[in-house]
């Protein structure tokens, strides 16, 4: 019997309910309003009063309205058919909703219950299983979707019976398990899980030890993201956060991508809806949409559901990780989620922390980032969630609570710089401010040296050093004037420009340049470093820029050509000729 209560207070989407029964923190409830039911979540209980945040507009709501408490937290439905769906923050299937406008109180089934999936058992009768054990497999697009023992099952079970290979709908019983007491439990292809609780159906979570290829040079080469790692992208508006995230979702080496469009522009989501079904995954050759799931809670959709949306996305990612898949989770933007927390904390008249955000903001962010990671499953397989969130710092100032709290927990920091964006140097990731802590992990650097090339990390650090020295030289040139500094400063500056133009900058809209393989990145980095190692000499500082511009142009043409193609080699040859000129000059001088 569910607890029933009555509305006694309303302030925007914060509603106070009086009830005699039991209620729980984060419990889901429904308010009866006319013919509709409005979904809400308990966020505080004082005596017989429960404070609930409503996921919809409360317009017209009256005191006395009946509220039914459901006895569970906000849950998502997990099962085959999630991929390539467009959900809102509460996992309603947006495509199933009628009409152009969203209707209040309209909740739709997240999965298609009448769709039949080709099923194949993986376990055998008599097997000992536990939460997360693989019982069978279905094809979901091209991903082998595992049917698992529900995560809510505690302890050990024995498989009593399994359905034979065949076509079944998600809600059909495909296995019967018996627990320690001999009680039978039916298992279907679907299960539910509360979004705010991490799914821990894995054996252990090691430190990340390999990198996740993104095809973006400034990330892979200079600040690599680890598989199962965490990172964040702060940047003022107009610095290219969203283009970068879209590019990541297109090119990253992941089995599937979950995008939480959290409180951002609706037209950006429309861009994904329009383009992803057309674009091809560079690795599998299939349509990008087939590996992508979008949780769209755009800025004009209800604020409370915005907070739920990032958790919904994370839970879906955890579900697929438990199948041994490599998941990339992107959230744009975590600041909007933090603002949703602030709005509610404010209405509850809690004492505010910095900038009006709730005091526990740091802890909430830290717990969320901690759900990502590389895991070993109980059957020895591995899976991972790599999480990258964007942050929209107020006024572009990185000393604000959301950025600072995130910086403490995320291991990669990709600072987008307004200055680089203004001078159209994209992606506008600042090479000096940004970092990847993974580069310092011995296991990662070992992995890199083994899988890319010997002494790779040393080369990367060298490139970073050249960039820093180039920046210092540039500052001196600006203060003292072109002719006020030694020639060496100009050369140093232009060496850093060479790395900037060839390695850092990348054309996200060019077919070839948009994504660069590790092999190619290795080749280009060493090619560039060979040039910067060179001892150049010039007659006048005025000759330095034009010469380097020619080198850069040849190298950029290489970037624009298919790796190792004739065009690539032709440009490389031109580059070598230019370098020979310098060698000759040098030889002449020495003679």
């Amino acid at each position, binding site marked *: 019997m569910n607890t029933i209560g009555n509305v*006694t*207070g*309303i*302030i925007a989407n914060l509603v*106070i309910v009086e009830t005699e029964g039991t209620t729980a923190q984060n419990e889901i409830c429904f308010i009866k309003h006319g013919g509709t039911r409005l979904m809400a979540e308990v966020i505080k209980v004082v005596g017989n009063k429960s404070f609930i945040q409503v996921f919809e*507009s*409360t*317009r*017209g*709501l*009256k*005191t*006395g309205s009946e509220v039914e408490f459901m006895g569970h937290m906000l849950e998502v439905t997990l099962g085959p058919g999630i991929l390539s769906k*467009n959900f809102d923050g509460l996992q309603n299937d*947006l*495509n199933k*909703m009628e*009409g*152009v*406008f*969203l*209707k*209040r109180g309209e909740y739709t089934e997240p999965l298609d219950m009448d769709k039949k999936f080709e099923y194949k058992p993986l376990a055998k009768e008599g097997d000992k299983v536990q939460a997360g054990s693989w019982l069978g497999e279905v094809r979901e697009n091209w991903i082998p979707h595992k049917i698992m023992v529900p995560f809510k099952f505690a302890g050990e079970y024995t498989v009593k019976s399994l359905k034979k290979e065949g076509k079944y709908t998600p809600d059909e019983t495909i296995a019967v398990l018996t627990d320690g007491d001999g009680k039978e439990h039916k298992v279907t292809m679907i299960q539910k899980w509360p979004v705010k609780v991490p799914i821990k159906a894995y054996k252990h979570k090691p430190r990340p030890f390999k990198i996740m290829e993104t095809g973006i040079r400034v990330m892979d080469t200079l600040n690599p993201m680890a598989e199962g790692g965490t990172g964040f992208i702060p940047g*003022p*508006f*107009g610095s290219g956060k969203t283009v970068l995230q879209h590019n990541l979702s297109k090119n990253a080496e992941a089995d599937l991508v979950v995008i939480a469009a959290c*409180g951002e*522009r*609706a*037209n950006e*989501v*429309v*861009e994904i*809806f*329009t383009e992803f079904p057309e674009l091809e995954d560079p690795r599998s050759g299939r349509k990008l949409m087939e590996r992508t799931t979008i949780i*769209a809670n*755009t*800025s*004009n*959709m209800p*604020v409370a559901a915005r907070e739920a949306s990032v958790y919904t996305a994370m839970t879906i990612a955890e579900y697929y990780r438990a199948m041994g898949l490599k998941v990339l989770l992107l959230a744009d933007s975590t600041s*909007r989620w933090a*603002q*949703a927390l*602030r*709005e509610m904390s*404010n209405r509850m008249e809690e004492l*505010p922390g910095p*900038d*009006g955000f709730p005091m526990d903001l740091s802890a909430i962010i830290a717990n969320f980032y901690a759900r990502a990671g590389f895991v070993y499953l109980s059957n020895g397989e591995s899976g991972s969630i790599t999480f990258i969130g964007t942050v*929209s710092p*107020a*006024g*572009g*100032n990185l000393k604000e609570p959301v950025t600072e709290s995130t910086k403490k927990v995320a291991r990669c920091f990709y600072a987008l710089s307004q200055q680089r964006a*203004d001078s159209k140097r994209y992606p506008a990731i600042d090479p000096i401010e940004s970092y990847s802590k993974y580069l310092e992990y011995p296991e990662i650097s070992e992995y890199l040296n083994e899988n890319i090339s010997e002494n790779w990390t040393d080369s990367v650090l060298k490139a970073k050093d050249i960039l820093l020295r180039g920046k210092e030289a540039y500052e001196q040139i600006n203060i003292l*004037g*072109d002719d006020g500094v030694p020639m060496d400063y100009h050369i140093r500056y232009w060496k850093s420009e060479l790395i900037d133009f060839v390695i850092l900058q990348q054309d996200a809209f060019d077919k070839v340049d948009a994504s660069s393989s590790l092999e190619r990145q290795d080749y280009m980095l060493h090619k560039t470093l060979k040039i910067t190692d060179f001892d150049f000499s010039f007659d006048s500082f005025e000759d330095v820029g034009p010469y380097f511009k020619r080198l850069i142009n040849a190298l950029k043409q290489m970037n624009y050509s298919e790796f190792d193609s004739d065009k690539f080699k032709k440009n490389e040859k031109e580059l070598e000729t230019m370098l020979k000129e310098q060698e000759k000059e040098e030889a002449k001088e020495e003679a």
Partner: protein
Amino acid sequence: MEKDTKAFQRVYTKLFQLTKATVSLSAKGIGYDELAIVDGRLAQVVKIMGDIVTLQIFGGTEGIATNAEVIFAGKPPSLKVGEDLAGRFFNAYGEPMEGGDIMGDEREIGGPSVNPVRRMQPSEFIPTGIAGIDLNNALVTGQKIPFFADPDQPYNQVMAMVALRAKADKIILAGMGLTRDDYLYFKNVFDNAGALDRIVGFINTTEDPPVERLLVPDMALSAAEYFAVEKNEKVLVLLTDMTLYADALSIVSNRMDQIPSKDSMPGSLYSDLARLYEKAVQFPDGGSITIIAVTTLSGGDITHAVPDNTGYITEGQLFLRKDSDIGKVIVDPFRSLSRLKQLVIGKKTREDHPQVMNAAVRLYADAANAKTKQENGFDLTDYDERSLKFARDYSEKLLAIDVNIDTDQMLETAYGLFSKYFKPAEVGIRQEFVDKFWEKEK
């Protein structure tokens, strides 16, 4: 102290709390967001706590007594919509300013959002004739974009010009804290252009109470949704000035004892603004709502909470700047940005548009560097001299807001300037375009 007037309408006459913007009274069966009339003034329910209802009075509480008459309307703020709206001006409550009634259906304002999967990708170019916009920052139907301008800049004039030249079926003006002079200016300009029948205005002037402003954008956008959804029309909504709208939000949140966040704005500013701007949409059946807004800045500061939050919501921004070299106001090519321009330039306009645009802005940037060099007393090269001359012409013939030519003419003008001062290699546009257009322009 209750007496029944109609079957469902009760009149209350006992207020027990009065603040500058709100009154509280004991009442039952009241809906959240519902409207009420307090002593003849319009008010809205903002808080219900047990039997205690708090009302926000749009016109302010000056002179309201504790025994004032309160009548609840039983419905949230609404607007009557119909063809009848066209050509008329309304106050913040949606009442015709010249008196009379509107024929039409009543709609709640501030209605639900469009399902994101039902939106179409914006793809229709809106030419304005202003090269600073069309050439460098092309606007697209379904876009939302503000002018970021200091109060002394002619943003309302530019906006009126854009509105008249854009081929919109309806232009809806939402004036918030508009001076009476500017209101009359808009009215005259639209009248003189013979466009009055395409205009709908919702006006709160500086003479009206500031809190009334909060209704204006929702009124305007509800009217816009009517024309765009039911009539499949292309609607252009002008919101001026959103900074004054945000000021009204902060007044209310302050009176409600809410904890302010950055720049004493309410913590919900982002959501409040996004709710309005996101009404910009391209509908599947051809109708669209495009929003052009004004966000006034103080001393050009874009890190203030209002422009900052706006920048994260809108699809770009347009900066106006006075160019002292030519003595005219120009659309600043560096700081302005239209995020949706990629969807139309070179597709709906001539193929070389993106390249010409980028090349001209790059050369203009070279001129800016040359200017810094000049100011610091360094010698100028021949290239510097030429780029400075180019910049002056570019500013005068293309960036100035008084330019009114079509996009092909803009591109021709650009080639004219390129060939006057530079060699093709210095301009760096693709050879096929040089062959096709540069030589021809010569």
